[in-house]
């Protein structure tokens, strides 16, 4: 397997049904065996470029220029290329590990003994800790991503393309996948192009950094010189953005708003507790961060605290400050939805799960209308939120057509529309640019200073360091620290 060369000249692409070009005037050459990190702001066309190199662009769109792999048009050189994306669950096909790795080589028509050999060496290359008969359903997220990587390596690609391979993993899982990739690339010598957000972790594996914008390549060179380039400011190359100094509003947290006492939750029909005997407090004017590996029960805890799910045992109780009214029950999961929304807001990991209407403006009006069915002057609240979260120009757009960052801002705005005193955020900074990241930090701190209590579930340790007053660490449903 010889490493592949990539030659891109004047490349542009307009996706079908869109009038705007995703990319224009891209000139890029990658030499065989080179390791390249591809950066750019959200929407800069990084994924499009990777797909172009893999020869997988939708043919219904319009293309300009050319993309060549080893001298052939990318679409003709597809068997030289391997592409790994961020979601192993949108990649794995079969139910047993070894069978799935064999899927790619089988599609290429390789004879069975060669397939077997490729599967064995690929599983070895990623350090897969189980035998090949292991069911995929029994694997953790990080293990599944490593299995997906094995599936790609089994194709013996000369060009390895990675589209945010670790963004859905917790830090430990990400490190393992990174190490596997590093070892595999060193062993095979294949050309590597990586798109990732956690830039600092990838710098040791690459020798070249390219910053991409919709109008072409903005910067190209070794990491240090590119870091000084102005285009790098929209990327994570310079590390986390500098935050303006903020005076600590209060040294002591305010009154407790919500207390979880020994809460346990087991999914109906499940065999283990998702959350086990967790005790924590969320207070006004303070931010509680909940951290832990994937599968440690963080999101489930957020659902319990948000009053969305009833605990199997233990209790989540709201303090009189939070109840603020004539509710008989102090347990949020017993409240009517409209009583809940006015007191506790939840922002989900996937913003699209919360969209209920066909326009941004309507979306913001849903909550207030539910909480105060008789009020007619909602436009003031809605307009204020549109401005505050920079969504005014999208007021009439369908929420599903927004970009990832816009959707996240919308879901936060929608939760804030009912003015809850307690706000729960699940992975708010997932996949965000430095600009949005900084906004989310300011937003959290503004809310805290205004007296709200926040609970933030996050993998992003930088975000945690920037906003958290206290941290709760979970592992397998239990509190590990403090």
């Amino acid at each position: 397997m010889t490493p592949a060369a990539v030659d891109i000249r004047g490349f542009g692409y307009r996706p079908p049904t869109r009038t705007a070009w995703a990319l224009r005037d891209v000139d890029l050459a990658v030499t065989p065996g080179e390791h390249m990190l591809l950066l750019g702001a959200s929407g800069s066309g990084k994924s499009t470029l990777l797909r172009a190199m893999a020869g997988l662009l939708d043919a219904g769109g319009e293309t300009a220029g050319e993309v060549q792999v080893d001298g052939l048009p990318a679409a003709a050189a597809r068997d030289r290329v391997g592409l790994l994306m961020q979601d192993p669950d949108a990649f794995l096909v079969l139910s047993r590990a070894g069978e799935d790795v064999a899927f790619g080589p089988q599609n290429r028509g390789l004879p069975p003994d060669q397939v077997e050999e490729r599967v064995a060496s690929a599983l070895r290359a990623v350090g897969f800790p189980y035998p090949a008969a292991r069911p995929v359903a029994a694997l953790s997220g990080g293990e599944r991503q490593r299995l997906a990587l094995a599936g790609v390596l089994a194709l013996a690609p000369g060009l390895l393309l990675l589209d945010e391979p670790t963004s859905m993993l917790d830090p430990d899982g990400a490190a393992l996948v990174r190490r596997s990739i590093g070892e595999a690339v060193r062993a095979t010598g294949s050309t590597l192009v990586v798109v990732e957000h956690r830039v600092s972790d990838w710098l040791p594996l690459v020798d070249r950094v390219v910053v991409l914008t919709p109008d072409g390549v903005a910067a190209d060179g070794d990491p240090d010189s590119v870091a000084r380039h102005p285009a790098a400011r929209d990327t994570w190359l310079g590390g986390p953005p500098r935050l303006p100094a903020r005076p600590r509003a209060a040294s002591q947290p305010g009154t407790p708003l919500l207390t979880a006492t020994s809460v346990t939750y087991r999914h109906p029909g499940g065999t283990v507790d998702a959350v086990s005997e967790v005790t924590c407090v969320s207070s006004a004017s303070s931010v509680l961060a909940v951290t832990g590996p994937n599968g440690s029960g963080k999101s489930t805890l957020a659902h319990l605290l948000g009053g969305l799910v009833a605990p199997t045992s233990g209790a989540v109780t709201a303090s009189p400050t939070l109840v603020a009214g004539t509710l008989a029950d102090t347990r949020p999961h017993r409240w009517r939805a409209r009583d809940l929304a006015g007191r506790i807001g939840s922002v989900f990991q996937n913003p699209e799960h919360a969209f209920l209407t066909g326009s941004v403006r309507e979306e913001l009006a849903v909550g207030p209308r539910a909480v105060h069915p008789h009020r007619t002057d909602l436009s003031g609240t809605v307009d204020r939120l549109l401005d505050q979260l920079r969504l005014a120009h999208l007021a009439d757009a369908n929420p599903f057509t927004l970009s990832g960052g816009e959707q996240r801002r919308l879901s936060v705005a929608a939760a804030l529309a009912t003015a809850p005193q307690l706000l729960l955020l699940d992975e708010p900074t997932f996949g965000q640019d430095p600009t949005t990241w900084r906004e989310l930090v300011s937003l959290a701190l503004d809310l805290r200073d205004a007296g709200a209590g926040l609970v933030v579930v996050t993998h992003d340790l930088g975000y945690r360091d920037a906003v958290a007053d206290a941290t709760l660490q979970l592992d397998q449903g239990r509190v590990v620290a403090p």
Partner: protein
Amino acid sequence: MSTPLALPRELGTTAFTRANPLARLAPAAALGFANVVTLDPVTPVLTLVVVGSALPVVGLPPRQLARSTWPLFAAAATLLVVNTLAYPAPGVGSADLGVGATTAVRLLAVALPGLLAFATIDAVDLTDAVVQQLHIPARFGYGALAALRLMPLLTQDWRHQALAARARGVTPRGPVARLRDVGRRVLGLLVTAIRRATRLAVALDARGFDGARRATARPSEWSRTDTAWTAGGFVVAGVVTAMSIALGAWQPFFG
């Protein structure tokens, strides 16, 4: 609903469970057909006797058996009640239990063999058999199998969407609101589903899915035993029908 591709762990290994999936479905189809075409009580009773005595061969543990089949028995019971009340007796609107019972036991005889067969069949094995034995194009077979992997995720998405609506303060009240709510939820699920499917399709193509050549490491075999199971199913169906005719009970519903 947790692991759609996993068979019951306690599934026994019998000649039946080792057979080709299609060879397990064929006798079920034959028996089902034999019972659909007639309205007499004898054919289904004979069929159920045969199926009952073949239960050990099917290989399902008793608890799994009970869990899988009770909804069918419940449906048959409902049908018994419904058809007893719905059959207009000549002259007077009195109920006829005989008719109700016959249609109920006929339903059992039609549906039970297929239910038992499917309970022993694994999705990947079925796909392999359908592609190799029935010559369904491989892209459709394995494309469907890949989509099936999304089911637990979509189930979770459906649940999260319900939680998110509650978090926004929305509780649909009244039939119109409930209807709109269901429509909205289905739309949301379809959007998520199509997004996942689009990403999955790119991954599949990246793994050579749309290539012309395809080799299979999991050959789906058809042995003489499989032919025996298939033929046997038709023979039993024929015998049961013949016995029913001999007893004068056979009553083709289209007659």
